[in-house]
């Protein structure tokens, strides 16, 4: 019997209280004389289905009741649903981004043991960059930290196969790279040591295999032409495989020649390695540093050789700005959710007060307290569920718009989607929201005796509930202030970044890339002929003001740094003096409106075997010849086989590395004088055209001119230079928009909260206000009473908010672009805005209070 009695707890409480004894008695008589086992099984088959059915019946009743009650107060229901939808939607979206950035596993085996390694400047590991082949070779031979170690470099090529020629982004890898990632090819094999001697092999990405070769099953062993050179297809990778990031079309072997290892300033490799089990990136870094020191002692003394290393896990080198961005977003979303919950609870509390009589009537009619609480929770959960569905739908639709915020360079799908894990978190959020908002009023409803409420106009506005609601309003105002201050600081940061003068004028400039494949364009003569034909044609187009060629657009090509020696100024062999190198054609400066400060632009007198000349930037002059005439001065490029250049002109500085970064001084060399650096990477391939007409209108004619110059030449990356610059601030602008939207939502929620609280207070104090009026209190006094209550809450909320906002902003330093977290203007505006909204929200309740008619208020008694 005790087993049956225990099982009875599965019934709804109201049913159990009513019938438990009868059930027990009946069951006892029904099963009299049976064995213990038979009774136990009878107990289970009796209680389980009936208890479920009983719960289901109650739920149906409560839902029907909730539906009726919502349709009577649609404003309340819609507000509540919207508030939940905003809270859940914002959080699901933010968590999806956080999941992508921080948690989603990479498509490699045991990816937590994978690290990237770089060459760093001595012990200063944060000053790191690409690795030279010489260092890579030494490290690989002597290291003890990694179970495997590889290196790769970027390469883009013209791919010619049976279908149309196309530009492909390839990664040249040493033979170790793909195996150490632990992913098997879908078909074929990885690279062998022989492949890295000839370089004549390619492994296709799944995407390229599908798009360019139609998923040809017999592709392995076929040949494709990369920049005119046949490469054998040796493998195809599976669809989910990405390395080192998304956009890669295929992999080719990295080939080193004996000369690759000579110049240790010739740095172009990226390192990837697998730690031995139990090893840490820091141990590996020490290991590599020790090797470098040893090698430095053995190498020639003329080189001030101070090479250190930097080792990061795959997520370890995400820019701190990108991390701050996502963390700030998640924080803001949580703020909104807390606000939503607080406000919803407040709404339910107010509604609970209004419904106190209804509840009391139901209780008097025999509905147990537990039934009423259950009813209230069903209502809040229903609203939360409906709002949650809307919120999840909003997140699902909105997340792709936020993909910009995911830091580039991670090997994850570039289009984030809300997956089932985040969905599950979203559903939990909904449940918590629903319960949090429903339980407080429900407990209150359960606590108050039905008689109190039936007895008359509920005058019990004070006490605990009032305190709770005041607390909620303070919380709401504080959160709004935090979000407003955050948005304000970011607005200022964006304005500051956008106001940075990049050093060139991007408006009305069209850019595009012509690949100039090797070995076809190996010779400088061939290249110059091509430039001449294209540039002459383009310059002749109506509306074109200037056209030039350059190696890499500013803000796009951020590297291209060489060591330089300035005789009489810097020490020979000092590899710390570096500058940004670009080869340009004539009119490049004019096309970008980079001001010519002294001397001249390059012209037709700068021939290949003439005097080797250079144009330097103002910062270059300031650094090496601060008080001298730079024209005619000489400097050397490179340390191993230095080549000498004579300065013929000085131009303005530009932000090569990005608007928010410090850039090295720049120097420019004429395309006609490639000098010793005559390597593919440095030949000018980017065409820039300044026009008096809308730049994109020229695309067709310019493509025609390029086709005339070389019918096989592919054209890619066609875009206005202005969009390249806009790209620089795009993640900031996106984040700013999101934060502004969140702040507005928060402010609205807070306004609703203040208004709701005061309206509630006024309605519960009508009697008191009426008495005051009857005793001769002036209207202003009554209004002041209500306003004072609202404004005290607002002031407390704002003070707390400013404090929290300051603390939060200090952690966001990386994305504030130098704006101070205690920026008084921002804080002042945010506080004023909040205060204004608070006053506006007080007005209607205050007016209602002023209109209280002393007679009718007293008559209600």
């Amino acid at each position, binding site marked *: 019997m005790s087993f049956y009695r225990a099982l009875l707890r599965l019934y709804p409480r109201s049913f159990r209280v009513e019938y438990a004894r009868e*059930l027990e008695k009946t069951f006892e008589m029904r099963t009299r004389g049976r064995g213990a086992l038979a009774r136990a099984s*009878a107990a289970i088959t*009796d209680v389980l289905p009936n208890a479920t*059915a009983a719960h289901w019946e109650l739920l149906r009743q409560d839902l029907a009741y909730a539906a009726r009650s919502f349709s009577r107060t649609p404003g309340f229901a819609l507000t509540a649903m919207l508030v939940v939808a905003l809270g859940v939607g914002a959080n699901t979206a933010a968590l999806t981004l956080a999941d992508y950035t921080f948690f989603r596993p990479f498509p490699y085996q045991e990816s937590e043991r994978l690290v990237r390694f770089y060459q760093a400047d001595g012990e200063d590991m944060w000053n790191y960059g690409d690795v030279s082949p010489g260092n890579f070779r030494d490290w690989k031979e002597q290291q003890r930290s990694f179970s495997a170690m590889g290196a790769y470099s970027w390469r883009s090529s013209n791919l010619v196969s049976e279908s149309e020629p196309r530009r492909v982004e390839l990664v040249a890898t040493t033979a170790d790279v793909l195996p150490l990632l632990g992913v098997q090819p879908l078909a074929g094999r990885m690279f062998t040591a022989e492949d890295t001697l000839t370089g004549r092999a390619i492994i296709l990405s799944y995407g390229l295999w599908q798009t360019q070769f139609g998923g040809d099953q017999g592709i392995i062993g076929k040949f494709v032409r990369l920049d005119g050179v046949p490469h054998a297809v040796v493998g195809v990778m599976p669809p989910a495989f990405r390395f080192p990031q998304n956009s890669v079309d295929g992999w080719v072997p990295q080939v080193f020649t004996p000369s690759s290892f000579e110049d240790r300033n010739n740095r172009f490799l990226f390192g990837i390695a697998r730690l031995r089990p139990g090893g840490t990136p820091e141990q590996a870094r020490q290991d590599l540093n020790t090797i470098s020191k040893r090698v430095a002692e053995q190498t020639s003394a003329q080189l001030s050789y101070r090479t250190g290393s930097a080792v990061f896990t795959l997520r370890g080198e995400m820019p701190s700005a990108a991390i701050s961005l996502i963390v700030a977003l998640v924080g803001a979303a949580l703020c909104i959710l807390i606000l939503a919950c607080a406000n919803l609870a407040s709404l339910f509390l107010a509604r609970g007060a209004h419904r106190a009589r209804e509840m009391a009537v139901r209780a008097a009619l025999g509905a147990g307290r537990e039934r009423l609480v259950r009813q209230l929770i069903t209502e809040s959960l229903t609203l939360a569920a409906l709002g949650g569905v809307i919120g999840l739908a909003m997140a699902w639709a909105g997340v792709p718009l936020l993909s910009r915020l995911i830091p580039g360079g991670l090997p994850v799908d570039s289009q984030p989607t809300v997956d089932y894990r985040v969905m599950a978190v979203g559903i939990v959020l909904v449940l918590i929201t629903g319960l949090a908002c429903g339980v407080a009023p429900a407990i209150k409803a359960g606590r108050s005796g039905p008689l109190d409420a039936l007895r008359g106009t509920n005058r019990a506005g004070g006490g605990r509930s009032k305190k709770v609601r005041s607390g909620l309003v303070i919380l709401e105002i504080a959160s709004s202030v935090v979000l407003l201050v955050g948005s304000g600081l970011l607005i200022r940061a964006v304005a500051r970044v956008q106001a940075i003068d990049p050093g060139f004028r991007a408006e009305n400039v069209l850019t595009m890339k012509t690949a100039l494949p090797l070995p076809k364009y190996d010779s400088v003569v061939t290249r110059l002929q091509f430039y001449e034909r294209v540039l002459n044609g383009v310059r002749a187009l109506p509306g074109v003001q200037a056209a030039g060629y350059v190696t890499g657009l500013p803000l796009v090509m951020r590297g291209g740094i060489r060591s330089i020696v300035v005789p009489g100024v810097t020490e020979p062999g000092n590899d710390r003096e570096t500058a940004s190198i670009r080869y340009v054609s004539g009119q490049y400066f004019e096309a970008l409106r980079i001001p010519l400060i002294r001397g001249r632009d390059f012209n037709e007198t700068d021939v290949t075997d003439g005097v080797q000349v250079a144009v330097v930037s103002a910062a270059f002059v300031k650094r090496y010849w601060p008080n001298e005439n730079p024209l005619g001065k000489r400097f050397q490029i490179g340390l191993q086989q230095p080549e000498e250049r004579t300065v013929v002109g000085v131009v303005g500085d530009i932000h090569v590395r990005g608007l928010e970064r410090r850039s090295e001084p720049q120097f420019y060399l004429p395309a006609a004088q490639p000098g010793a650096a005559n390597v593919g990477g440095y030949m000018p391939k980017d065409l820039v055209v300044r026009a008096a007409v809308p730049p994109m209108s020229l695309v067709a004619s310019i493509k025609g001119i390029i086709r005339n110059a070389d019918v096989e030449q592919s054209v890619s990356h066609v875009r206005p230079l202005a969009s390249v610059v806009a790209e620089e601030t795009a993640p900031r602008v996106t984040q700013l928009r999101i934060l502004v939207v969140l702040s507005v939502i928060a402010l609205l929620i807070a306004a609703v909260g203040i208004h709701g609280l005061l309206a509630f207070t006024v309605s519960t104090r009508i009697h008191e206000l009426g008495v005051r009026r009857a005793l001769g209190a002036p209207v202003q006094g009554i209004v002041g009473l209500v306003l004072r209550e609202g404004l005290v809450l607002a002031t407390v909320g704002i003070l707390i908010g400013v404090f929290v906002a300051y603390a939060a902003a200090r952690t966001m330093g990386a994305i504030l672009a130098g704006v101070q977290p205690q920026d008084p203007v921002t804080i002042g505006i945010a506080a004023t805005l909040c205060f204004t909204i608070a006053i506006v929200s007080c007005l209607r309740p205050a007016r209602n209070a002023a209109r209280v008619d002393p007679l009718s208020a007293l008559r209600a008694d």
Partner: protein
Amino acid sequence: MTDTPEIQNLLPLPAATFHILLAVAEGERHGYAIIQDVEARTDGELRMSAGTLYRSIARMVEQGLISEVTKRRTAEDDERRRYYRITAFGTAVARAEMRRLAQLLRLARASGLSPESA
């Protein structure tokens, strides 16, 4: 005679409900007596468990088909026993259900169908 919408809304009655109505129509019954009564009436075909019975009773009380008898009839009655009797509304509903079933039977007969296999 036309039935009110309140009655019509309850039809057709679940088998258990109808049987319980029949059992309490004859007089006040407590729970276990209802089970026994129904079992005897159906030759043991409908054997309700305690849960099924009281779930039905709870619903029927709410619908107003039966009501609990608050006054104990004799002193020797078990204190735990609760007695139920049919209400006027319950009788009306039971009658309406009977008419519905009779009508159904008439229609079936008229179509020439007979319960015995030919």
